[in-house]
């Protein structure tokens, strides 16, 4: 066969050569065609196909350099002015003020969420580079020390990215298209200087300081486990001694220190005029959250999301000081988690072999989240919202673990296709749940504090096909109590202090003990919200009409109406303050742990996750961390908030998170003009 192949390849070579010749001739003819009847100023003599890249693509940097404009601070607002370096004849007279430098020094502190206790900043700013940054950890607690060291490494990696340094060595962040381009462009110094039009050296650059020392002190608590009593407050103080800048973050716990680092990241910015990092010469910030539970839920059953995309989401949560990642791991549609004890679940329930999470994945995400001060809370929804992945019981002699799986017509037996509900009268079902809890708790850390049992939208008609019980709701209640008992066994004999369930018909009765159960309220009337508090439950708000991020994309089914249109804008999310609206007394206010935005994924997959989540989830973050007063009309957000969220959004984009646009860029460049 080989000689033949050789002949063939020779023929191919010849043919290609001919083709090249022919194409050359054809280009000339093409030019003739394009120019028929006229001589154009530009010759169309370049390749038909390949676009030239002589002109730099605006995508090279998420936030491009804006040489055209200079900014001036007037009445706490940055005003955009055309910049002409030669306006004064010799070009020396004027210095361009970049938008970000103006924004960070004009008006109130520009971080998101806004600090709650105190923030004082000097107007004097100093320039430095990533190389100047040093860490000084001051804590007697070994675990805290370890975590802060890693958190700091990620912090520096982000700084390098903001400073547009080569980040190819830190491969942990997802390689978006942008960063790929960036890397190739930053290969080699010559190219670098030609691209930016200034000479840029990898050598240490002239900043205003010799060093920037970040000192983090955590004395009081060495606890690195999440619980509702974590002290998340921190203080940040910047002082300048000669040419040494000292940033001192003081906190009572790792969690507070971690938030201090997020704040520090937001008072550092990259100036595209001098290509250096900037921060304040002096600052005093004192900060603590208004709510303890600041969550984001992601559903990985309706669509699968890669570990990378989850980590990316968590890193953005860290920047926004959100602290709970509620992982709606499974649902009726799919079961992507490969269980140690029951691999059948994923084998039967995952969309494909590749759309699965291993134990290692869960552990990795948990560890990553901790670096960002985020707790991972896995949820195996039960008894409803469970079907695919639970269908192998009979084949293993365990009986039906779930009922109504994929049953049609679905609308009789569940809220959305496919149907599926666990079998409350099969002991194996409970045993499996117990072991799932056990292994998940091993991966996400033992908890004395918080766990989610699911428990929503049970369809009693599904069970009624199988059971003659007169009190099917009682059956449901017993199921929940049984899962609580199983969780206790799985958790070393301890029931977490806050056991969350979704609000439902069941939570309107008092069958679940209020001493143990916390209700995540997503629908229902205000009266029902009041009743839950009156009945003594702790509450997490996830109201569908404000904090459901999936709404607004129409019906995904072939028939029927959209479940929850319209889309919730970031303003809707920001302005939702159920605790104010309900006029709660002090006691009831204490029962509110916080809130959570929900990303159900019927109509989202990995490709749009970032822009569905961000910057809207940021709106929730400030609502729960700072809970600013709001006496404006129903959809009005003060200009000051626009100004800050716009910068926050840019920061997300700089870090490779594809956050949606808030408004035309004109409005970002001209704060206050579009309101």
């Amino acid at each position, binding site marked *: 066969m080989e000689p033949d192949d050789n002949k063939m390849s020779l023929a191919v070579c010849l043919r290609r050569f001919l083709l090249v010749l022919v194409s050359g001739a054809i280009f000339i003819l093409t030019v003739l065609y394009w120019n028929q009847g006229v001589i154009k100023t530009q010759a*169309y003599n370049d390749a038909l196909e390949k676009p030239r890249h002589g002109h730099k693509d605006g995508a090279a940097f998420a936030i491009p350099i804006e040489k055209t404009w200079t900014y001036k601070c007037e009445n706490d607002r940055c005003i955009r002015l055309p910049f002409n370096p030669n306006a004064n004849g010799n070009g020396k007279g004027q210095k361009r003020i970049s938008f970000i430098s103006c924004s960070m020094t004009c008006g109130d502190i520009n971080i998101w969420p806004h600090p709650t206790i105190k923030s004082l900043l000097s107007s004097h700013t100093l320039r430095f580079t990533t190389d100047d940054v040093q860490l000084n950890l001051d804590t007697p607690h070994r675990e805290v020390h370890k975590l802060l060291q890693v958190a700091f490494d990620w912090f520096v990696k982000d700084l390098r990215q903001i400073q547009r340094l080569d980040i190819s060595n830190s491969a942990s962040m997802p390689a978006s298209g942008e960063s790929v381009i960036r890397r190739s462009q930053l290969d080699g110094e010559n190219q670098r200087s030609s691209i930016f039009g200034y000479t840029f050296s990898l050598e240490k650059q002239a900043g205003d300081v010799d060093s920037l020392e970040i000192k983090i002190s955590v004395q009081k608590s060495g606890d690195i486990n999440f619980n509702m009593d974590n002290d998340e407050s921190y203080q940040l103080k910047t002082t300048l001694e000669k040419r040494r800048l000292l940033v001192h973050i003081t906190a009572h716990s790792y969690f507070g220190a971690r938030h201090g680092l997020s704040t520090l990241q937001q008072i550092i910015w990259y100036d595209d005029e001098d290509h250096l990092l900037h921060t304040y010469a002096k600052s005093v910030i004192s900060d603590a959250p208004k709510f303890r539970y600041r969550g984001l839920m992601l559903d990985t059953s309706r669509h699968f999301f890669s570990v990378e995309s989850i980590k990316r989401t968590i890193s953005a949560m860290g920047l926004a000081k959100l602290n709970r990642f509620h992982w709606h791991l499974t649902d009726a549609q*799919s079961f992507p988690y490969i269980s140690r004890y029951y691999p059948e679940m994923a084998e*039967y329930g995952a*969309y494909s*072999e590749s759309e699965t999470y291993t134990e290692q994945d869960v552990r990795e995400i948990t560890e990553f989240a901790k670096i960002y001060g985020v707790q991972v809370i896995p949820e195996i929804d039960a008894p409803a919202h469970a079907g695919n992945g639970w269908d192998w019981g009979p084949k293993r002699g365990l009986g039906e673990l779930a009922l109504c799986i994929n049953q049609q017509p679905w609308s009789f037996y569940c809220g959305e296709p496919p149907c599926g509900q666990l079998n409350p009268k099969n002991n194996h079902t409970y045993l499996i749940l117990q072991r799932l809890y056990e292994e998940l708790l091993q991966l996400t850390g033992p908890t004395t504090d918080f766990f989610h049992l699911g428990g929503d939208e049970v369809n009693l008609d599904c069970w009624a096909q199988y059971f003659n019980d007169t009190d099917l709701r009682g059956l449901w209640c017993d199921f929940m109590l049984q899962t609580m008992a199983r969780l206790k066994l799985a958790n070393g004999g301890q029931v977490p202090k806050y056991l969350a369930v979704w609000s439902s018909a069941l939570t309107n009765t008092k069958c679940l003990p209020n001493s143990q159960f916390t209700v995540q309220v997503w629908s229902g009337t205000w009266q029902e919200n009041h009743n839950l508090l009156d009945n003594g439950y702790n509450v997490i708000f996830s109201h569908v009409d404000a904090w459901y991020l999936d709404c607004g994309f129409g019906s*995904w089914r072939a028939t029927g109406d959209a479940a929850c249109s319209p*889309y919730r*804008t970031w303003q809707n999310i920001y302005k939702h303050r159920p605790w104010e609206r309900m006029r709660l007394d002090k006691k009831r206010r204490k029962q509110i742990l916080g809130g959570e935005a929900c990303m159900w994924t019927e109509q989202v997959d990995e490709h749009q996750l970032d822009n569905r989540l961000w910057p809207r989830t940021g709106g929730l973050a400030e609502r729960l961390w700072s809970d600013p007063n709001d006496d404006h009309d129903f959809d009005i957000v003060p200009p000051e908030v626009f100004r800050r969220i716009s910068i926050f959004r840019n920061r997300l984009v700089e870090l490779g998170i594809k956050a949606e646009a808030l408004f035309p860029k004109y409005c970002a*460049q001209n704060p206050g003009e579009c309101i």
Partner: protein
Amino acid sequence: MPDQTSYKHCYHWGAWSALCLTAAAAAITAFAPVAYANDSSETSSNRISGRSKWLCSSTDICTSEDEQVPGVQYLSHQFESQRDCRLSCGKYGSIWPMPTGDECSLSHERVHFDPWKVRFNVVAPNDVTTQFLHETNRLFVSNLLKECTRNCTLASSKEVLVKATVQSNSLVLDWTTDESYMMVVRSTDKVTFVDIKAPTVYGARHAFETLSNLVTGSITNGLLLVSAARITDRPVFPHRGVLLDTSRNFLPLRYIRSTIDAMAASKLNVLHWHVVDTHSFPLEITRVPEMQRFGAYSTAQTYSRADAVNLVKYARLRGIRVLIEIDGPSHAGNGWQWGPSAGLGNISVCLNQSPWRKYCVQPPCGQLNPINDHMYAVLKEIFEDIAELGAPEETIHMGGDEVFLPCWNNTKEITDVMVARGYDLGVLSFLRLWSQFHQRNLDAWDDINQRMFPNNKEPKPVILWSSHLTDPKTIEEFLPKERFIIQTWVSAADSLNRELLQRGYRILISTKDAWYLDHGFWGSTNYYNWKTVYGNALPSGARKDQVLGGEVCMWSEYVDQNSLEARIWPRAGAAAERLWSNPKSSALLAQRRFYRYRERLLARGIHADAVTPHWCVLHEGNCL
């Protein structure tokens, strides 16, 4: 084959049944039925791991064989995957948009092949068309490579010979271009022949797009191709567009190119480039560099002349025109500030005025000054640049929407001149002023074209948005129907389309409450999901060419590169089928093809939105 009798599809095997027999024989030898371990206890996990076979039901549903529904009849063919099944299950398989010709038959047999080993033969009347088709072949192969599930390389590939024959030597792409094609696929035991015939290169490129819809990745290596097919096809509407706004937010070139790629995959043929607006002026005008210098958001957020020229070529190779819009007299502001400093006076007025509500419908404000001759001179220079950018036959969109009369009415230099000309300051006077603006620009455009393209026989019509000026009662007074095509953006219930058609105008349709892709994220607007987009019926005029087609509009107030693709796709694809096929059937029947179409977009690197839980894609017919 007991089920064949109940199988009611338009299979036109007749004349070429002999052919098909050999094809079938070939396929059977290629696919000697693999012994299938029928271990019922493992069935579900077989679906996950891809070991189970798929069946096509008599109701065109592809089902994993372990999820067969009792009582439903299935064809005897076994397919290796859902995508394999989709290729020929149902009359149109997974072709998007659906072909419109009488003939559409797809065999259930497959040819297993290696995309690197496909060979092309081009028969075209001249060099430019030949070259065009060579490029088409190259793009086709690169799209095929993206379909490979695993490795594309296949040791024992069938030979696939594709022959494309084109009649016309013209590369003209406009509303009169014949985009039809016919394609026959037939297979012998060694070779598969694909025969494409089209009047123009554009028809041929659409045929290649269809051919790519007859291919899917094999669960082993290589690709699967429908072994026999016969398709005739032509678009219903000649103008099938996507509007892209690069002014509210800048879109880097590669995102425009990716939009073009996705449009090509959907047989859309017009990129309406709303390149400038009040917010920014990113386009380089070589004759008036001030426009970009004063108007761009930043030096990096610009399109150079070379960028634009290359983009036009990039699009054209994919069968797509780039129709550039220079909006005026409204929606023009930033980029027009430099008049006074250059001694030209105010070429725009109300610029960035506040409070904006007094001077425009959306901040920032800005409207061209219709009584300043310098403004017309600048505009003519811009038009001249635009004429150079495009193909000789290409026209221009002159905007003309949302003129805010109080802006002019509040500008003394304008009202003074109007009074001097003997106008009162009533609405009609302003409308007259406005229409004179368009007429004068049309004259400029004609003048440029006569000089630049003396071979063009007829003056080109230009396009305007519907507005006060296009009010059916008075439009004939202001805008001659021979020269102005109206792009309407009214709601579906509005009578404007009908009335303009009655008066003999040619129209383009961008139904506001179906094809505005930016809706649903601001104010009280609603999001239109793909089914609504699909279901948007277009009116028809007395003359066949009166409704040229339509466009979906991606205004970019709340969209930039981070969410662009998900906002446009796959919804624009639903409009593509409306414009290409104008189907009588509902979105419900298109849904399975549509899901496959979306997956193809993803494979080609377009981050299309998800439209339904993945489970529903895998379990056809279960999520009604």
